[in-house]
């Protein structure tokens, strides 16, 4: 650390540097140059690594790095030129082989050279911002060999030729291809892309364009899709075997564009094998394939979805406007369910449960179901049929399945309140005639409706069930207290119905026979005794009666008839022959009902307990009726005149419609008042929008009707028009 020692050192330091003169540099370089030659000539075994390293080290240390570097460049370049020539000389198939071999050798040599020149790589090169040795080696290879005029084009051609041959089914040397593409990638991604990938993609596009054109002329849709899928998989495999993974996306894109996207429309609409045919023939495999392939292309799925949707709508519309179909509602609804099942199956198995397709299906169904205004009625009839007989002997789970399907159709309805009306009617008939197959099934359906639409919807329906139960209890009480009185008289069974819950019936007149009147009075007194303040009225149009009848030869039959029919038949206890007018007078049953009931008694084969003169089909005012002594029947118990729920005739339909409209008015008004109370002031369009939104779970209100209701409310001073703006309404508390 002290200053004295340094003097001796000073002189030494100088010495070191001066000793190294240009000749030294030249000599050292020569040694290294020779070494590089030997390395390229596969003669490296005779060299001493350490010696070479030391020489390179010294050159750099003594500031001859520049000479070393440029010498390296020159030497390597000349060697590479030689190599380039030898590759060019290779014939035909051996070209790639030779290239590959020389490349491997070059890499080995490069590594050795780099090890020797490590010191330069680490110190000189970063300082002077030159290319490191390894990179330099790659760049020189690229420039001298690959981009040499003769080799570049030949290489490209041979590579593409190989791909083409493999595409037409020949086997090629994939390992060799792999090495070559790897070489290109090592040289830099731009080399790989510009020298190979770009052209590869272009050539592939042309190839597939041609091929797809060929296929589409000769194959049908399913076959074409198979071929396209096969080619796509081939390309993916090809990439995995000997191309850069980043090429996969690009080549699949090419195949998708050429084979699928350009022919999308033609495929879908192909005669006899396109999408529609596949759907109709339920070709799930083909559909699944189409889905997968089209998914890769933008707008592919949109196309499928649109075509499918319009087809479903058309099919549905056809179904709904086919008069044949509409004759049998149960059949009709069953067809709808089958249609839905079919498409559900297609979507789950072929379209991978794609949500967008589900939505499209739902919207199509919703569209065409509501095209026919009688759909709510038909669905209710379908349920009615099932609950009367269709579900007999069916397991509980299957029952649930059927009901769930019905619920699904129900959801599509826009006019749910119409359905409610019909359902109430049909339910009433079922309950009162005791024709329901399973009480559990009925209740289950009510629960489902409640979940779907809320308590309000089903409260009346539940009321009906409660009434039935209560009536049972009442009857028990009645029999217990009056049982002894009845004795041999007619047996009475009463159902007491709460007026609000049951469908409103017109009040009809009917004179009950004397035998019946007695017991009816007894019941009335009994009931009013226990429930004061109520009013009972007999619903003669809804009852049934069991009569024991003895015919000519003494054969007895038990007849199950409606109340009206009972009244008529009881008259024949006292007379053998009665005219229409007489019957009408005594019973006071309304004309149309009377005619219908007489028809079923006299004109139906196998049930004609009465004979009519003349024997025409229709009942005329001038007809006469006789008790049919000669009536025979195989069965002891004969059922007459219990008519199952029919689809309504036109006038009946109109009537129901009207009633529904009437019911809607107060609902709309209630909605309007509710909205205005909350908002205070609102303009016309907004009111209409809000009302529609609130009521949409029950029905779709008509804007004209809404307007009328608003005006009515204004008259009744619930609302007022704003003085300044005619379109604005104000709530009046």
């Amino acid at each position, binding site marked *: *650390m002290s200053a004295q020692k*340094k003097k001796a*050192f000073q002189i030494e*330091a100088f010495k070191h540097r001066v000793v190294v003169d240009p000749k030294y540099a030249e000599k050292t370089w020569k040694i290294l140059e020779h070494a590089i030659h030997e390395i390229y000539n596969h003669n*490296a075994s005779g060299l001493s*690594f*350490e*010696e070479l390293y030391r020489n390179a080290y010294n050159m750099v240390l003594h500031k001859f790095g520049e000479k070393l570097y440029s010498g390296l460049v020159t030497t390597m370049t000349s060697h590479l030129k030689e190599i380039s020539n030898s590759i060019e000389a290779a014939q035909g198939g051996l070209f790639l082989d030779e290239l590959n071999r020389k490349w491997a050798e070059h890499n080995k040599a490069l590594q050795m050279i780099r090890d020797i020149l*490590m010191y330069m790589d680490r110190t000189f090169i970063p300082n002077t911002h030159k290319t490191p040795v390894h990179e330099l080696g790659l760049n020189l290879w690229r420039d001298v060999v690959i981009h040499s005029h003769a080799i570049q084009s030949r290489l490209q051609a041979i590579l593409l030729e190989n791909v083409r041959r493999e595409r037409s089914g020949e086997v090629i040397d994939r390992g060799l291809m792999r090495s070559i593409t790897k070489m290109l990638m090592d040289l830099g991604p731009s080399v790989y892309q510009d020298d190979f990938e770009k052209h590869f993609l272009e050539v592939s596009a042309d190839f597939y364009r041609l091929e797809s054109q060929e296929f589409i002329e000769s194959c049908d849709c399913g076959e074409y899709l198979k071929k396209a899928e096969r080619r796509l998989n081939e390309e993916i495999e090809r990439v995995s075997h000997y191309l850069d993974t980043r090429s996969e996306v690009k080549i699949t894109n090419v195949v998708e564009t050429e084979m699928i996207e350009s022919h999308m429309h033609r495929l879908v609409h192909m005669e006899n094998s396109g999408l529609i045919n596949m759907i109709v023939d339920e070709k799930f495999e083909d559909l699944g394939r189409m889905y997968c392939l089209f998914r890769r292309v933008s707008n592919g799925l949109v196309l499928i979805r649109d075509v499918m949707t319009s087809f479903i709508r058309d099919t549905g519309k056809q179904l709904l406007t086919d008069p044949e179909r509409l004759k049998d509602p149960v059949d009709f609804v069953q067809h709808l369910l089958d249609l839905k099942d079919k498409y559900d199956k297609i979507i789950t198995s072929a379209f991978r449960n794609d949500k967008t397709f589900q939505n499209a299906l739902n919207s199509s169904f919703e569209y065409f179901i509501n095209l026919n205004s009688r759909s709510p009625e038909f669905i209710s009839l379908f349920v009615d049929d099932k609950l009367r007989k269709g579900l007999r002997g069916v397991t509980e789970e299957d029952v649930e399945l059927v009901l769930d399907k019905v619920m699904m159709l129900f959801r599509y309805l826009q006019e749910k309140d119409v359905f409610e009306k019909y359902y109430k009617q049909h339910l009433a008939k079922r309950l009162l005639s005791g024709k329901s197959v399973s009480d559990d099934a009925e209740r289950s359906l009510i629960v489902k409706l409640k979940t779907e639409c809320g308590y309000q919807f089903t409260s009346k329906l539940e009321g009906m069930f409660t009434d039935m139960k209560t009536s049972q209890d009442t009857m028990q009480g009645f029999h217990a207290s009056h049982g002894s009185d009845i004795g041999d008289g007619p047996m009475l069974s009463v159902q007491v119905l709460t007026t609000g819950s049951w469908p409103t019936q017109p009040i009809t007149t009917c004179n009950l026979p004397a035998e019946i009147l007695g017991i009816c009075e007894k019941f009335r007194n009994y009931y009013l005794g226990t429930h004061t303040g109520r009013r009972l009225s007999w619903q003669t149009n809804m009852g049934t009666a069991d009569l024991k009848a003895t015919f000519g030869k003494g054969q007895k039959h038990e007849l199950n008839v409606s109340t009206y029919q009972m009244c008529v038949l009881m008259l024949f206890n006292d007379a053998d022959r009665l005219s229409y007018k007489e019957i009408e007078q005594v019973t006071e049953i309304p004309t149309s009902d009377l005619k219908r009931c007489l028809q079923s008694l006299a004109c139906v084969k196998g049930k004609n307990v009465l004979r009519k003169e003349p024997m025409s089909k229709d009942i005329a005012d001038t007809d006469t009726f006789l008790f049919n002594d000669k009536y025979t029947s195989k069965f002891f118990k004969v059922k007459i005149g219990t008519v199952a729920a029919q689809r309504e005739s036109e006038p009946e339909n109109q009537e129901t419609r009207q009633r529904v409209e009437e019911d809607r008015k107060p609902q709309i008004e209630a909605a309007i008042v509710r909205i205005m109370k909350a908002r205070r002031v609102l303009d016309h369009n907004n009111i209409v929008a809000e009302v529609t939104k609130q009521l949409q779970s029950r029905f779709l209100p008509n804007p004209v009707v809404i307007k009328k209701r608003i005006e009515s409310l204004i008259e009744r001073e619930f609302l007022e028009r704003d003085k300044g703006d005619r379109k604005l309404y104000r709530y009046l508390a």
Partner: protein
Amino acid sequence: MLLSKNSALESKDNEIFEVEESIAIQSELIKTMTTMVNSKAYVNERNQMVPEARCRKQANYHVEQNNKIVDEELSDWESKFFEVDMDDLHELFMAANYLEIESLLNGVTKRVGDFIKACKNVEVIRQTFGINNDFAAQQEEEIRKLNSWNHI
């Protein structure tokens, strides 16, 4: 590995050192050589020529010791090791650079740094290290002006 636990290293002045392999590999150069031995075998296995003279020995010594001593003792041992004169320091420096032994290189440079700090001004530094003043008078003026805040 083909190498035995001890590798024999020969120095320029033909002295052979038996060094444990793990220590020898501390030198980057030797590490490269040994890996190359396995793959290319154009280097004689045991005979590796090293140009440095006695420095080699010292480097060896240093490296050996490095592996045996725990940290606190290390700094003591190190300061003793580096208390050599300029010549030896120079040779140690060259050895460390050539063989690329990082820890040795760090130690030496630190030492040199200490030397520079101890010097009072430029002239003293030049004397200590034997550096010629190759600035032209004008250049020197410019540089002094630029760095006047540094109190050169």
